[in-house]
């Protein structure tokens, strides 16, 4: 058992991190997702990790970094695709929100009958004037077209599991960045003549955030390891758990970071709100913490039918 990054994984993490720091500065990120971002990430191999022989454990290392850098876009849906793709859960006729519609080549929907493909051009909807996450444009599509069946139900559930994992990895990245930002601010910001991080009230908030993020990273990496080697654990339970703790970590650290930053945390200028809003967006994708918690509860010993 070596449940820690291998030397190769450390190199992979450092490589993608330096690429993102160099080319995906917050200044650029704040301009939102576009084709050039997609092309650069494609060139870096972000969307072909599996085809290039990388494991799920490797993949979550990369997607955590995408989250840490707050890179916007349909990054999870485009994994394994040669086009800009997003994936949502939904059926023909459903009213849905579609993210990044203007940038999409196609949308995949996951339903009971399998995977359906819808060309982006056939999706009609109005764009929200005031999206929650300014970097995640949202279109309201009143009636989802049926699309073309391109995958079986079992392929749909496998894809759902994979995308859930990568989303959780992004959430860990958001949380981790929020911890680093808050700690940095708590060390430099002074009030009452002292760095605010020397006060227990602030120090303890930072400690709570750090614990949430570390637990979430361990949970997500465990789920990835089990997806790579299914004999080593209960894949579905670890996956549900990963999405729960990663989603909660991202939101909790976003909210707490806002508090650590005080008034500045409520400004547009400080990046905290972009991370927190992304955390809220990702929480709506591929099952919220509560729906996954219900699924975990289903896997625990059940009450006698007469008691229910």
């Amino acid at each position, binding site marked *: *058992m*070596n*449940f*820690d*990054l*291998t030397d190769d994984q450390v190199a992979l993490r450092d490589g993608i991190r330096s690429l993102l720091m160099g080319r995906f500065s917050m200044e650029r990120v704040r301009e939102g997702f576009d084709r050039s971002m997609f092309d650069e990430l494609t060139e870096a191999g972000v969307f072909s990790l599996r085809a290039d022989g990388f494991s799920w*454990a490797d993949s979550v290392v990369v997607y955590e970094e995408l989250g840490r850098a707050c890179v916007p876009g349909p990054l999870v849906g485009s994994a394994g695709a040669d086009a800009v793709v997003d994936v949502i859960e939904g059926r023909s006729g459903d009213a849905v929100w579609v993210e990044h519609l203007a940038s999409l080549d196609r949308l995949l929907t996951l339903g009971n009958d399998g995977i359906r493909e819808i060309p982006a051009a056939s999706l009609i909807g109005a764009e929200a004037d005031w999206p929650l996450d300014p970097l995640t444009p949202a279109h309201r599509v009143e009636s989802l077209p049926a699309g073309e069946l391109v995958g079986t139900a079992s392929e749909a559930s496998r894809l759902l599991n994979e995308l859930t994992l990568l989303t959780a990895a992004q959430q860990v990245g958001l949380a981790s960045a929020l*911890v680093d930002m808050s*700690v940095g601010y*708590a*060390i430099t910001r002074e009030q009452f003549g*002292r*760095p605010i*991080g*020397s*006060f*227990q009230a602030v*120090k*303890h908030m*930072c*400690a*709570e955030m*750090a*614990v949430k993020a*570390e*637990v*979430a990273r*361990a*949970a997500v*990496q*465990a789920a*990835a*390891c*089990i997806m*790579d*080697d299914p*004999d*080593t*654990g209960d894949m579905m*339970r*670890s996956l*549900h*758990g*990963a999405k*729960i*703790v990663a989603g909660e970590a991202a939101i909790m650290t976003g909210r707490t970071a806002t508090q650590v930053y005080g008034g500045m945390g409520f400004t547009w200028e400080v990046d905290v709100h972009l991370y927190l809003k992304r955390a809220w967006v990702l929480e709506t994708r591929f099952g919220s913490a*509560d729906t*996954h*918690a*219900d*699924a*975990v*509860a*289903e896997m*625990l*010993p*059940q*009450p006698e039918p007469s*008691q*229910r």
Partner: protein
Amino acid sequence: MDLRYSDVDEAFRARLREWLSSELPKLPVQPARDDWSARRGWDTDWQRRLFDAGYAGINWPKEFGGQGATPSQHLVFLEETTRARAPYVGVNFVGLLHAGPTIIAEGTEAQKTDHLSNILRGDEVWCQGFSEPQAGSDLAAVRTKAVLDGDHYIVTGQKIWCSYGQIGDYGELLVRTDPDAPKHKGITWLMLPMDLPGIEIRPLKTVLGSSEFAELFLDEVRVPVSCRIGAENDGWRVTNVTLAFERGTAFVSEMVDALRLIDDLSPYVTDPAYRRELGHLAAELDGVWALTKRNVTQAARTGVMGPGSMMIKYAYSELRQRLGELSMKVLERDVLAIDAVGEFVEERLRTLALTIAAGTSQIQKNIIGERVLGLPKEPRP
């Protein structure tokens, strides 16, 4: 990165499982909670069985009579013994997890010879004598005074929260040997033979209604200088060696136990909101368990526990509080008798201590904030 145990570890697991399934049915009936001499007999009998089967001191180095297990085998050992509902370490806790490792790290050859094999065989029970009424979270504020008189220290003072004080052969004792030095510089770590004249032990009744702890009153107790571990006035450093072991793997059994308790509680949980909370708790415990595996991997590679070890105790003990609260809601009026349904109410009461003992959650957050995150220290008055 993987979660696969090696073939050697799996063979170790299989052997241990087989031994547990043949040995556990032979255990005598567990004694009453407050019958301390019977509890000592029962717990040390289990320790002797472990010793005879070659499992005593699982993570102690081989040269000191331990099994020299790797951190991952240690994890397997704790997983399997807890899942099989083997006895908890019980009265052997202080000897095996505190005093023994401290003697291994800091003791003289004579101290090692005199104590280590006795602890492993279950022939010697240790109790704790760290905290004082005025030195709880601020442990370095201990006042119990020790004055050198020839080849003895004359010790006077009071200790509290002495686990197994009623039946211990030796106590791990922190004393102040230099009252004029800064508080961290004037402390000495002594082994206290519990049969010396001048020691009075009073049971301390806890919220469980039983006496898991004792108070210790020391009145001019003459402790031989040969009982000192490490140098005079170097006891704070030695104490941190002791406590580092506690932060390592001491909570693994508790965690496996908590996962089992969730399974045990689950059939009683019918309300959908409570089932959802149970699902959350199971997922969060799974996450802390994964962090434990991370930590064990890092310990195996570097020899020291990673930053995760500081977080595990805090995260785990807070989750136990939530699990305890959920149990009380689920059982409704059945909570009125502690033993009406399963062990849930007793566990609710017992686990109130988990966010206090071995460093409160608040102290843990100071440690995480300062040592892991590098935040500035609180100014010392």
